[in-house]
């Protein structure tokens, strides 16, 4: 992070935009209308104000394939790259027809045949056709997802920086673990450390959880205080330059994680890592659990990382998707190892992993508790 608001570096943003344009061609899209923050950042390279959680769909950026022009929702030019001229910026408005009017006047919209949007609301489904009178409105998220799934070299460089901040903040929080400390205090330490490292934006604010001895995945409940012997799961999820890095570890309060449970988690984790080979079906990541009789965790076993979530999302809730999806070199995955034992608690581990032609490269290096 710098002392002024800057757009993403030229090579980073142009490399991404090229991938987006290629996918527009592959998906036969003349125009993309994007509302999701991650997609807007991917295409424009412009940082925007962060608010937590999902926001309602509305056009924030438009990319026209024939001209390569970008129109962007921004009231000012700070942080806007020079390839998006001032006249292509449009302002916040409470009347959606104002936005429609802006889009309608852009070269290439009147004749567009297929327009992709990355989500849709009933309200915009009514008014967007006015901007694209000749077009069929279709899903554009598939094209964006295809572009995002494989990282460029420049993306990997910033992802590595994000991982570094995640790991530093994780270590700071782990160092504060002691009997009596609360989950929230630990979360506060972690988030403060991430901010000091320049990552003021959390990917995840559920940073510390006292795992339950009674339930396989609920938090222990009560006052959120760590007691001797509790297993506490830490997750650092930070957003740096828009990119999400994740690292997670479990530590025991006042001692070591019980060896048998740790060994079970290690065994799953070794199999998860081994499944990160180009060409392998993503379902191998589910098999990493089920193949040795472990229960699938309640969260995805693996999920792509980048600007937000990326494919694949590998969960027991989507078995067909996992079987059809292939692991590819250039994907970055958050792998999650999670095992639980009644009366003891859970051991959780999350790592950011890059898939290369030669197999997985572990980006996280934090010690295991």
């Amino acid at each position, binding site marked *: 992070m710098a002392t002024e608001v800057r757009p993403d570096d030229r090579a980073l943003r142009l490399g991404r935009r090229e991938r987006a344009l290629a996918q527009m061609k592959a998906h036969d899209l003349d125009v993309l209308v994007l509302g999701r923050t991650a997609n807007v950042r991917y295409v424009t390279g412009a940082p925007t104000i962060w608010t937590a959680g*999902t926001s309602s769909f509305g056009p924030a950026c438009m990319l026209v394939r024939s001209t390569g022009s970008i129109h962007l929702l921004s009231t000012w030019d700070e942080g806007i790259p020079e390839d998006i001229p001032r006249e292509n910026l449009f302002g916040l408005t409470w009347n959606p027809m104002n936005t429609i009017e802006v889009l309608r006047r852009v070269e290439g919209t009147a004749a567009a045949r297929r327009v992709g949007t990355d989500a849709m609301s009933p309200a915009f489904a009514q008014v967007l056709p006015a901007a694209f009178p000749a077009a069929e409105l279709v899903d554009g998220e598939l094209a964006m997802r295809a572009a995002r799934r494989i990282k460029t070299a420049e993306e990997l460089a910033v992802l590595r920086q994000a991982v570094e901040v995640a790991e530093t903040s994780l270590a700071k929080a782990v160092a504060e673990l002691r009997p009596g400390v609360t989950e929230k205090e630990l979360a*506060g330490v972690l988030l403060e450390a991430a901010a000091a490292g320049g990552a003021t934006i959390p990917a995840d604010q559920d940073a510390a959880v006292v795992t339950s001895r009674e339930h396989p*995945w609920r938090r222990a409940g009560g006052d959120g205080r760590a007691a001797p012997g509790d297993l506490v799961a830490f997750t650092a999820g930070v957003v740096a330059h828009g990119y999400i890095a994740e690292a997670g570890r479990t530590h025991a309060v006042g001692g070591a994680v019980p060896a048998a449970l740790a060994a079970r988690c290690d065994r799953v984790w070794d199999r998860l890592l081994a499944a990160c080979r180009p060409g392998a079906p993503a379902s191998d990541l589910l098999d990493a659990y089920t193949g040795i009789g472990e229960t699938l965790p309640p969260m995805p076993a693996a999920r792509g990382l980048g600007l937000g979530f990326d494919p694949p999302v590998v969960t027991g809730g989507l078995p067909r998707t996992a079987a059809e999806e292939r692991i590819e070199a250039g994907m970055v995955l958050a792998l999650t190892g999670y095992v639980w034992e009644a009366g003891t608690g859970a051991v959780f581990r999350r790592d950011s992993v890059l898939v290369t032609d030669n197999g997985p490269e572990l980006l996280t290096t934090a010690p295991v508790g």
Partner: protein
Amino acid sequence: MTVTDIPDVPDIARMRRETGQKLRDAMARHGVDALVLIGNSKVSYATGVSWPLGDSGLAHVDRPVAVVLAGDPEPHLFMPFREGAGPGPELAAGHLHDPVYLEYDEGAELFAAQLAGLVPSGAVIAVDELTGAMRRLQHRLFPGGLVDAGRIVSAAKAVKTADEVACMRRALRITEEAIADVERAVAPGVRQVDLSGRFVRRAFELGATANVLDPIWQVMPPSRAEGVWTIHGDLALPLLTTERELVRGDVLWVDVSVSWGGYCSDFGRTWVVGQDPSPRQRAQFRRWTEITDAVHAVTRAGATGAELTKAAIEAHGDGTRPWVKHFYLGHGLGVDAAEMPFVGTDLGDQFDQSLVLEAGNILVLEPVVWEDGTGGYRAEEVMLITDDGYIMLSDYPYTPYGD
């Protein structure tokens, strides 16, 4: 509602009962039999469940989904699990479901099958938003056509229950206590990101559920012309936080927001770094106070938005609107950090005339005063609208400009 109606500790079960009733009343007015909600704040409103919100990018795939049925007082919740976001208040038996993954065709198909089991055939279903996979499966998910759920939820949540106000007041107290700690730390040489870190840490220690806005510590320019270029020539706001170090005399416009129990706080103040405000700067604050006093005088249930904007403009003295062009004089607050009612937007005076404040609305008043060479003045006040006026929910001094 009076001050004594607002409980110290909100009763979450009662809150869900009452908000659920409002929601079903709004559904009935719109002739809707079921709601499918996928936006984080709308799910939170419909179910009373709160969790530490994450980055929007991850939130798309990890999102809870709510289904509200006209004939069932209990909402259905499809809840993902990340590291600990277990369901908060206990839901009725059979109403808590495994997560659904609506970003994927397979996930949308599985959800369609579950939805068909919950909703009678031929039901009119409203939805707030559709993922690509939901669009591809639209005719199976919503065979009766598509109705906008956004308007239904907006209409229901504009008037708050006493428990909702209690949640917001709790979020405000956490914010104000954390911000007091930050204000003491403001000094030349401190970086903006350090203020963010300190604020977030303290807010979590005090029990915040989540930080909902990357905190703003915007250093104001000496003049409008020397500020960041904008499409309308007015001030840029809010500008992003960086590792910039504060220097003596910087005027900071502060804006932060956290949530507690799913409800947001809002906080805005103007600070000067390392020195007292000059007489000219104090005059900016006095003008701001005159504007808010004038607005307070007309604020009550039954007043129109236009009455408030008129009072603000008259008190401003030069006939112009004392707020930045791309925002508003005031906005609502609840499960969203800015929601209805919006007063003074680009929807124009006619809209403001048609907007009638109701008892139980929350209005965050945030006029802006600007004179080149002073850094201006901006602050935010959170008010609960009542039949005969308002209850001020914010409780923080206007230091260093005044009390």
